[in-house]
């Protein structure tokens, strides 16, 4: 890191805070603070929705995901445009007509107190913990790669944005997100351009895609079938993307206050709808582009040799562990295979450019074999270090920043590190705003008299500050526990989302079902999902081997099972109640 890099980071982060403060002027009441007086045009709603969804991990993990697993991750977003349409038809008109502050307020109108309380509690629990983790996850990557202190990285990642989020509420969040996204996209485009420029002489963008394609990274569409049957544990394929992704997106955009709060800031139905529909148009191409950067980085490393692990701190630490001899041997092995690979990939692109089909075919088979060998070495390293440390040694999230750190010029390195902070700030700021709106409107205001609009405004700022401190504490706590907690919180999110969506779908579409039937169904399905997902653990604890007969599915399907389960059971309970 040079002075120029630090300068770029300092200027951008300070600039965003000052811009946020400049845009902080708002009416001093709840509607002004949480909903920006319902005054936003569609394009600000769109940028705010995108900025809320795109966290730091989106830009860290996207290219890494393409590097290790190819482009197929884009299918995860196929259900999103369909969900946008359903939300525009059903959710938006109801929320806007009732002039709610939070999505959960609607549940009291439709059902009762307890259903609203349960749903907003599930939201606060899940969003509070996951926001803490979304501070910790990029911080640990930055601190590992650059040797920064995790405590202070967490503070910068989750702390500075509190200044303008507390001060300006939803308005400051939306305006800063707009600027943040512009900088992020410009930087990502520049990164993609630089990768192509750094390929060897005579190797262009199209050749890089051909190399990656031959090595299985251009697998944009996959069907999830292995040996003729559908694999329910396969995470990303067209079916899990369209169906599972649809339920996930419907739940996230339709019932998660961090997103609902963005389009409630719109001037009217028209602006909310337009913002959401535009998101449905641009989200898939945007993710495709982010993954494409990862595929280009993959091609770059075919010519330059990928390390045994992109997590350089883990690699260095492993050389002092009991397994150091094995690690050194794996390092030597991967280096020698990389030399061979560089030679073959050069010959392959030459054959490609000269139209030598036979040579191209022969070399691509050899390249695939060499790729399998290097993948095998990297896998052995991961297994070995995981056994030794107990930590997840997967380096997918490290690929992009390791490339930035090792290969990009001064200045650009600073810019790309800054965008990680900006992306984190955009999504965390919206999360804090939504956590505060739910805790004030769904809990505090119902329990005590919050007084005048001025008092409510001051209370809302305090809640925002309180949630900011809570999330930083979760991030600091996560630093003590390690990666296992990240995984646990991600699973927690998937477990809750389906049930929350199910409650809303009953409210919208099953008009004859009442609050008690929905409440009981939600509790039953939640319990079922927890037992199903942790069936091995429950079977071991209870001795009930039958639990292992429950379906064992990838997390994307949990949303669909949860939502449909709540609808079905609530309907049945209502029938029996009569």
């Amino acid at each position: 890191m040079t002075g120029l890099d630090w300068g770029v980071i300092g200027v951008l982060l300070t600039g965003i805070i000052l811009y946020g403060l400049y845009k902080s002027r708002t009416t001093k009441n709840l509607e002004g603070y949480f909903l920006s007086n319902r005054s936003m045009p569609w394009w600000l709603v769109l940028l705010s929705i995108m900025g809320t969804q795109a966290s730091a991990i989106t830009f860290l993990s996207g290219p890494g995901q393409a590097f290790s697993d190819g482009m197929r991750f884009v299918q995860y977003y196929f259900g999103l445009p369909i969900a946008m349409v359903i939300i525009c038809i059903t959710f938006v008109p109801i929320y806007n007509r009732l002039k709610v502050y939070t999505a959960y307020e609607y549940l009291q109108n439709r059902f009762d107190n307890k259903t609203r309380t349960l749903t907003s509690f599930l939201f606060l629990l899940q969003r509070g913990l996951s926001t803490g983790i979304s501070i910790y996850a990029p911080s640990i990557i930055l601190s590992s790669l650059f040797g920064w202190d995790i405590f202070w990285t967490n503070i910068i990642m989750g702390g500075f944005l509190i200044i303008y989020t507390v001060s300006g509420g939803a308005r400051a969040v939306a305006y800063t997100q707009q600027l943040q996204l512009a900088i992020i996209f410009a930087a990502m485009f520049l990164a993609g351009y630089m990768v192509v420029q750094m390929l060897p002489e005579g190797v262009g963008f199209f050749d890089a895609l051909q190399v990656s394609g031959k090595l299985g990274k251009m697998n944009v569409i996959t069907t999830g079938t292995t040996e003729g049957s559908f694999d329910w544990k396969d995470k990303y394929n067209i079916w899990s993307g369209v169906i599972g992704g649809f339920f996930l997106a419907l739940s996230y955009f339709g019932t998660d206050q961090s997103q609902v709060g963005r389009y409630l800031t719109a001037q009217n139905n028209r602006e909310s709808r337009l913002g959401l529909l535009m998101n449905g148009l641009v989200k898939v191409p945007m993710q495709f582009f982010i993954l494409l950067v990862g595929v280009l980085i993959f091609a770059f490393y075919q010519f330059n040799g990928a390390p045994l692990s992109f997590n350089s701190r883990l690699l260095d630490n492993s050389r002092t562990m009991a397994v150091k001899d094995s690690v050194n041997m794996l390092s030597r092995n991967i280096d020698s295979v990389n030399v061979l690979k560089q030679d073959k990939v050069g010959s392959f692109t030459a054959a490609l450019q000269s139209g030598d089909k036979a040579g191209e075919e022969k070399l691509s088979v050899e390249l695939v074999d060499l790729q399998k060998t290097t993948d095998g070495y990297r896998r052995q390293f991961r297994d070995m270090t995981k056994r030794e440390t107990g930590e997840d040694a997967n380096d997918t999230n490290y690929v992009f920043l390791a490339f930035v750190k090792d290969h990009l010029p001064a200045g650009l390195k600073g810019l790309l590190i800054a965008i990680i902070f900006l992306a984190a700030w955009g999504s965390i700021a919206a999360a804090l705003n939504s956590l505060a709106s739910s805790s004030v409107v769904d809990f505090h205001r119902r329990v005590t008299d919050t007084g005048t609009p001025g008092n409510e405004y001051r209370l809302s700022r305090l809640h925002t500050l309180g949630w900011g401190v809570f999330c930083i504490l979760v991030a600091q706590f996560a630093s003590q526990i390690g990666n296992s907690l990240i995984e646990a919180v991600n699973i927690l999110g998937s477990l809750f989302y389906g049930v929350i969506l199910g409650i809303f779908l009953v409210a919208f579409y099953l008009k004859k079902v009442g609050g008690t039937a929905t409440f009981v169904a939600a509790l039953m399905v939640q319990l079922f999902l927890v037992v199903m997902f942790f069936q091995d653990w429950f079977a071991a604890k209870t001795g009930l081997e039958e639990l292992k007969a429950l379906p064992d599915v990838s997390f994307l399907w949990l949303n669909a099972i949860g939502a449909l389960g709540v609808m079905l059971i609530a309907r049945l309970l209502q029938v029996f109640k009569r």
Partner: protein
Amino acid sequence: MEKKENDKVPFFRSWNHWYFFVIGFLVLLIIAFYSITNYFS
């Protein structure tokens, strides 16, 4: 602050046209992605 509702659908004649456009665009993207997958495999 009460804002006046603007019911005019932008760019298309009705919201249904918008919905078909968004889904149609998704289908086109999937077809394009399928072609990319086949071409580079």
